[in-house]
């Protein structure tokens, strides 16, 4: 599904070179739920952006669904994002002047779908997060948790194989966060691969596999279970380390 080998990312300005990611090698299989943890500025988000084709990398190889993405231009990268990847952000990033229906509509527009099909998909997606009745509302009329549900509906409406979430519960209180997490777990259970950045160890602990990034590297040793048998509750050393640091 996702196969990174020796990915490096260097930000260059006139004065400094910053190594955001160093030699990241990671294989993600179809249907996994992976959490990424690490301290602020460790490169979590850069990793997610590269995985989501929002940023390019300096060195290495990245195969998405068997396709090498390093040579792709903006147009093809956009198409891949549109069809295979869904994004969820910490601050939801809903468009403030579009109502819920239109917000969920955005990725479908870029797919060039017929109006009737768009409508049925949008309504299904909104229904699945329990907000169909409010499809005419503007994001500002919703609570934070509801907004994040809409964002999830928007990420899912194109039926991507692969969901990238950047601190999706970071701006939510614990009750709401729990609801969002349950929703994501249900989505994962129905087959969608999820990679989620978080700094909350209790959330990280709910994933089958946790990657800890430190100073742009994947911290060694890796998770205990590199097999597909990892179950809930298998706490990695890395997340334990974070917890102890916190």
């Amino acid at each position, binding site marked *: 599904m996702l196969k990174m080998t020796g990915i490096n990312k260097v930000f260059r300005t006139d004065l400094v070179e910053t190594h955001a990611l160093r030699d990241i090698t990671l294989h993600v299989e179809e249907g996994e739920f992976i959490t990424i943890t690490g301290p602020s500025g460790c490169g979590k*988000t850069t990793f997610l952006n590269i995985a989501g084709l929002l940023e390019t990398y300096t060195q290495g190889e990245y195969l998405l669904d068997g396709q090498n993405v390093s040579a792709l231009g903006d*147009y093809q990268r956009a198409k891949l994002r*549109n069809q295979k990847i869904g994004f969820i952000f910490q601050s939801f990033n809903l468009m*403030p*002047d579009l109502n819920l229906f239109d917000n969920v509509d955005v990725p479908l527009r870029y797919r060039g779908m017929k109006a009737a099909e768009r409508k049925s998909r949008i309504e299904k997606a909104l229904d699945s997060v329990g907000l169909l009745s409010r499809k005419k509302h503007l994001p500002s009329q919703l609570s934070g948790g509801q907004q994040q549900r809409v964002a999830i509906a928007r990420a899912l409406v194109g039926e991507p194989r692969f969901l990238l979430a950047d601190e999706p519960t970071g701006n939510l209180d614990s009750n709401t966060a729990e609801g969002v997490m349950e929703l994501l777990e249900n989505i994962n259970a129905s087959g969608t691969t999820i990679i989620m950045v978080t700094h909350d160890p209790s959330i990280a602990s709910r994933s089958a596999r946790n990657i800890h990034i430190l100073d742009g590297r994947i911290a060694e040793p890796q998770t205990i279970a590199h097999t597909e048998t990892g179950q809930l509750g298998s706490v990695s050393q890395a997340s334990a380390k974070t917890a102890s640091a916190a």
Partner: protein
Amino acid sequence: MFMYYIRLSLLSYRRNPVLSTLMVLAVAIGIGAYMVIFTLNYYVGGDPIPAKSDKLFHVQFDYGDPAVPNSTPPPQLTYIDATALLNLTTQHPRTATSKFSAIIEPEGNDIRPFAVDGRGNFADFFTMFDVPFQYGSGWDRSADDSNQQVIVLSQELNERLFGGGNSVGETILMHGYNFTVVGVLDRWVPIPKFYDLNNGSLNPGEEAYIPWNLIVAMELRRSGSTNCWKAPEGSGFQAFLNAECAWIQYWVQLDSTADQSAYRDLIDNYAAQQKQIGRMLFPLEKRLFDVNEWLLEQEAQPPETRMLAALAAMLLAVCLLNTVGLLLSKFLGKSAELGVRQALGAHKGSLFIQHVIEAGFIGAVGGILGVGVAYLGLQGMYLLLGDFLSTGWLRLDITVVAVTIGLAIASTIVAGLYPIWRACNINPAIHLKLQ
């Protein structure tokens, strides 16, 4: 997708209503003002007879006193030269023409006698200048030769004398002579009045047209301008006719370049002959001017229009610079949205199109408002210059409206290119994390 982008443009407008309205106003005022000046210049400086302007020629001779410093040759012909040219060749349509004024004494006592501005001309005048007729037509060349007392009325004069009805065949008492009406003009307002620029290039045309020879035969009061560079020898009307006094415009229609060069040779020869007998001593390089050359030579376009054009261009430039700045702010202010759209699958091309349409949308709204501004501007021009401009020529037709809106859309998009380019090239990643 187009309609989707239009809807996004509308939403975007509503998101920053003040900023967007400022842009619309800037475009509207800039384009509106530009169109007012453009319309003015188009009419004042445009080609008054586009179909034939390169076939109609005005003749100029080497007039003036070479001893007098800084003098320019008067732009008309003397009686001697006009009559000589008329007889030099009759192969091409040609006309000598000049203004007169006379008193018309209407029949009965309903209308008091009144003065009219008239024009003496040859039969060819009407066909050469494509003069439109409402009733009847001009007269035959034979009427020119036999001094027939025929008259063509302007629409206004026909209205005044005959209530606008078909007056062909009626008789008019003018300057003590009876004239038979042979034709009534339709509305004819060439701007500028290229065939006689001597008394104001924007002035309305004359009210009555008669065979030119009658001006001399009846000794009508000539009312155009007269330039003498030598005092008449002797006194009286005949002495004036023989004098070096220019008061006649002379036009000839030359359809082919061969005709034109042949005619040029003809008048060059004539001028050379005249030089030998001591006339035409003022050095002149060019004697034959087509309509547009003549307008340029005579500076028919007021210099003020060029100044206004420059000012209007600067006004438009300021408005568009304003738009560039505001669009830049607006589009860069949407960085987060652009980032999200890219994450959701928009490629740069679709963002580019979205923003071109958004800029075009602002341009279109500005353009529609600009038509209103242009309308008000032209109304203002009327108020200020009303009786200088023949009525009804400054108007907004469908072409001007279309050009205004089109120009507004195009210039706003051009103004938006750099802001759009910047907006499409933001790094989406940095704008997704926090707002």
